[in-house]
C-alpha cells in the first residue's frame, strides 16, 4: 500500500498556480527525489504534505487516511520535516533541539519526560551524535546541524520524513556525509523519504546504493517525468526541464553520475 498518496493536488498563491493536478504515490521504505528548477513547486508540495499550507483541491492520503482528519500533532506523528537550513535560533543544546521532535507525542501543555529523553538520546546515537548532546546547536558546522535535524525527525518517530534541500548550504564533504547518513537511516529503519534537491546526482547516489528510489522531475507545478533515476534523469529530459546540456556518465561498476557541460 502507498504510505503517501497524492491525487490531483492543486495549489495557488493568490492567482499564481504553483501546483497543478499533481499526482504522486510513494510506498513504504521508498526514497523519492524531487527535482526541478527554482520555483517549480517542490517546497510548496512539501508544505502541503506537512499541512503548513492548505491545498484547495485534490487530496493527500497518509497510510490510506485522508490528511484532513488529522490534527496538527496527529500529522506530526506521521510526517517529519527537515528544513533547508536552521539559523537565527537561540543557542539551544543539541539535546534540546532533538527533544523538540517529541512534541507531537507530548501533551498539549506539557514538556518532555525521561522517556522522551531516552528516545532523543537513541536518535542522537543512531546519527553518531552522542558526544554532541550538550553542545550548542548554533556552534555546529552546517553538516552537523543537518544531522541533528535528521536526528530530531527520528525522535519524532514518523514514518515519512520530508527533507527540503537538506544539503543546499553544505560543502561537498558535508553533503556526502549527510547523504550517507540518510542512506544508512533508510536501510536501517525502513523510513519513507521524500527529498527535494537541486542535484540530480542525489537521485543517482541513492540508485547507485541500490535503494528503492524514484526521481520526480517537476515542470511548473506538475511532475513531468517520474521513475527510476536512470530512466528519468536522461540527457534529453534534463535538457528539456533545465535547458542545460549534460552528459550522464556510467562507471565500470554500473553507477551513474550527471555532469553538466
Amino acid at each position, binding site marked *: 500500500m502507498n504510505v503517501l498518496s497524492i491525487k490531483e493536488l492543486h495549489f495557488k498563491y493568490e492567482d499564481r498556480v504553483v501546483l497543478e493536478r499533481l499526482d504522486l504515490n510513494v510506498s513504504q521504505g521508498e526514497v523519492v527525489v524531487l527535482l526541478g528548477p527554482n520555483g517549480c513547486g517542490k517546497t510548496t508540495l512539501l*508544505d502541503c504534505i*506537512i*499541512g*503548513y499550507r492548505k491545498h484547495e483541491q485534490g487530496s493527500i492520503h497518509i497510510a490510506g487516511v485522508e490528511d484532513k482528519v488529522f490534527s*496538527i*500533532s*496527529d*500529522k*506530526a*506523528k506521521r*510526517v*517529519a*520535516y527537515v*528544513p533547508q537550513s*536552521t539559523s*537565527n*535560533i*537561540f*543557542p*539551544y*543544546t543539541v539535546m*534540546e533541539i532533538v527533544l*523538540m*521532535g517529541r*512534541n*507531537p507525542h507530548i501533551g498539549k*501543555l*506539557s*514538556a*518532555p519526560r525521561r522517556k522522551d529523553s531516552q528516545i532523543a538520546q537513541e536518535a542522537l546515537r543512531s546519527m553518531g551524535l552522542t558526544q554532541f548532546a*550538550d553542545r550548542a546547536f*548554533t556552534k555546529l558546522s552546517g553538516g552537523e546541524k543537518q544531522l541533528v535535524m535528521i536526528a530530531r525527525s527520528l525522535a*519524532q518517530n514518523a514514518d515519512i520524513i520530508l527533507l527540503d534541500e537538506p544539503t543546499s548550504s553544505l560543502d561537498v564533504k558535508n553533503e556526502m556525509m549527510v547523504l550517507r547518513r540518510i542512506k544508512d537511516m533508510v536501510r536501517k529503519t525502513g523510513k519513507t523519504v521524500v527529498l527535494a534537491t537541486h542535484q540530480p546526482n542525489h537521485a543517482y547516489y541513492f540508485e547507485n546504493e541500490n535503494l528503492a528510489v524514484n526521481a520526480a522531475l517537476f515542470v511548473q507545478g506538475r511532475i513531468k517525468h517520474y521513475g527510476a533515476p536512470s530512466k528519468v534523469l536522461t540527457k534529453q529530459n534534463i535538457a528539456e526541464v533545465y535547458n542545460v546540456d549534460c552528459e550522464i556518465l556510467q562507471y565500470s561498476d554500473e553507477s551513474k553520475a550527471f555532469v553538466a557541460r
Partner: protein
Amino acid sequence: MALLQFETEDVTKANRARAIKTAIIVLPLIAFILSIFIGRYELGFVEVVRMIFSPAQHSGEIAYSIVYDLRIPRAILGLLVGGILAASGASLQGMFKNPLVDSGMLGVSSGAGFGAIVGIIAFGNSQAITILFAFGFGLIAVLLAYMIGTVYKSSPKLMLVLGGVIVSALFSSLISMGKFVADPTDQLPSIVFWLMGSLANVSYAQVLYVLVPVLVSAIGLSILGWKINVLSMGERDAHALGINTRVIKILVVALSALGTAAAVSVVGTIGWIGLVIPHIVRMLLGSNNRVIIPYSFLLGAGFLALIDILARTITSAELPIGMLTSFIGLPFYVFLLRRTKGGGW
C-alpha cells in the same frame, strides 16, 4: 584522559548552573526580609523581630503598623510586579525571538497609562477606579495590537510587534493629550506620578488585585515555556513539529498581557525589568524557556524589591522606582553583554 577532562568540565558546568539557580531562588527571600527591616522610618532590628514573632502583643503600636501595613504589603507587591514584568518579557522575547520585545512593546503599558489618565480625569483620585481603567485599557491595547498584527499573513510574529508599536504610539499621543487637558494643579501631578511608577501608598487591597492575575500569568507562561522553545524555531518548523502556532501565540500574548496589565495598573509603568532581566537569565542559564521564564520571575521579583528599598531610603524624598530600575539595571546589563558578547541573539 580527554574524556575525563570533558566529564569534569560538564560537572563544573552543572555545578555552576546549580549555584546560580540557588542564588536566584534565594534572592527574593533575602529581598523580602531586607524590605521588612529597612525603611525610611527608623525601626531597630530587635523591634522588627519582636513585631514579627509576637505580633499579637504589639498591635496598635506604630512599629506594628509600619511592619504589617506598610513594609510587608509593599515588599509583596514589589516581588509580584518585578516577577511578572520579567517573566512576561522572557516569554515574549522567546516567542518573537526578538531581544527588543517586552510586554510594554505590546502596548500594555501605554494603554494602561491612558486608562489611568481617563480614570484620574473623569473620576478624580479614586484608586480603585484608576486601577480598573488602567487594567482594562492595557488589555484593550493588546487586543488592538493583535488585530493589527493579523492584517498581514506573511510574517505574523513580526507583524504583532509592529502592531504593538503602532498601538503604543497611539496611546502615547493620547496620554499627551490627557496631560494637556488635565487640571494642572490637581490632576496633572497625579498623572505624572502615576506614569513614573511607584510602589508607595500600597495596601493589601492592591496586593489582592494583583495576586491572582500575576500568579495565573506566571504559572501559565512557565508551563508554556517548552512550547515556546518549539515555537521559536520558526512557524513552519513549529507547525511540522505538531504545534498549533496560532493557539500558543494567542495564549502567550494573553497571559503576558493579563499579568502585565494587572501589575502596571497598580504601580504604573516600570521600564527595563521586562527587557533586561530575561537577558541576564538567558546569559546565565542557557536558552530553554522552561527554565528561563520561572527564573526570570524570581530574579525580576528580587531585583524590584531590592531596588524599591533603595528608592525609599537613599534620599529623604522617595525616588521614582522606574528611574532607579534603569539606572541600576542598565550598567549591569551592559557589563554582562560585554562578558558574554550577547549570547545567542
